[in-house]
């Protein structure tokens, strides 16, 4: 089909989204996209969901840290932000989510808000709550495995 004249084309906004999860979470791109759409559908309804779009354009996640580029229509950024805030779990894995910034192009979005992937995580034993436990250490953050669950800690709580 012939593409639209410029003034009729959809204007987009691209949201840089930071994702945090426990280190053993396995979150696929497909699962995250589904969670985004479900969150929008549940919060804004079908009509609102169509308005915010929320197509996932880029997605990386490794060892519980990740980032994504989410597309939304210009003028619906706050609704998109609301829907993104309501994503609390993907396939049963709880996630923390934050909008780092908004750009008018994917390229600007990536250059400005993405990358900068922190230091690589190290798996090692730390002293926490009176016992040696296995933890994933990234900078001063420590995700400690306690029984079958995780506890978020920092360098202050171990050592």
């Amino acid at each position: 089909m012939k593409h639209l004249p410029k003034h009729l084309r959809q204007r987009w906004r691209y949201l840089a989204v930071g994702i945090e999860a426990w280190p053993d979470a396995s979150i696929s791109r497909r699962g995250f996209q589904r969670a985004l759409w479900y969150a929008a559908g549940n919060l804004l309804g079908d009509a609102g969901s169509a308005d915010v779009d929320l197509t996932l354009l880029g997605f990386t996640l490794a060892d519980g840290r990740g980032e994504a580029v989410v597309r939304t229509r210009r003028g619906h950024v706050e609704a998109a932000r609301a829907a993104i805030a309501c994503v609390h779990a993907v396939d049963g894995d709880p996630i923390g989510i934050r909008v780092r910034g908004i750009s008018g192009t994917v390229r600007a979005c990536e250059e400005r808000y993405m990358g900068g992937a922190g230091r690589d995580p190290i798996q090692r034993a730390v002293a926490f709550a009176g016992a040696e436990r296995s933890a994933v250490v990234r900078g001063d953050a420590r995700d400690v495995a306690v029984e079958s669950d995780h506890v978020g800690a920092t360098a202050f709580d171990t050592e």
Partner: protein
Amino acid sequence: MYEAVHAYPDGASTVARHARTAARHGYDGIVVRTRDAVEVDPTATDPATTAAPNATRVAAIREEYGIDVVDAVEIDVDGPASAGGSVGNYRPDHTVVCLVGGDDRLNRFAVEEPRVDVLTRPMADGGGFNHVLAKAARDNGVHVEVDLGPLLRATGGRRVRALSNLRKLREILTYYDAPYVVSVNARSQLELRAPRELVAAAAAAGFDPDWIRAGLTAWGEIVTTNRERRSGSFIAPGVRRGRHETER
């Protein structure tokens, strides 16, 4: 803007981890609802400059992440009889005293007790809230918590019921101009959301953005007032020890 969190062992993140995440999200401070997570030396007169080992750790966390960490307690009891004793016990040692509602008699008790700072989760577990409680809360300066946790984390019918309760609570609180605070009751750093996201989500649920921001700021106001009251130079509201007063 402050957020009130549940820290380890009550939640799944330690105080420091909550502080780290909250600082990144742009909060000015966190109120730690878990009693033993932030221990401050009760014998010290000025809570801002306590020298107990735990207090220095909290000071180090404040220093490291550039964010205020406030000791609070959340009293969770079965009935008003035991609540009265707990409030009396914890009030002298903690900057913020919260009482978990969710039961008609406890809600009533909390709003009529000026020593309670915050009535948390008044509508959870079938608790009710009405104009009588709102007026009592306003007269006694007890803040009522607006728990946005279900908006972010519940689904289906539970979320619908929670949202309709929140709407009722908001209308009553606004009409009687009763004090309130807003929180998401985060149990781990993953459940924290940045103020801007929170405001946007609440706006989608029918809240006024400024109303939500005011509710987040209200935690900070409670903290400032109570720190002032617990400091050595406080005598009565509006009366403090001046610089001409000499130690006797």
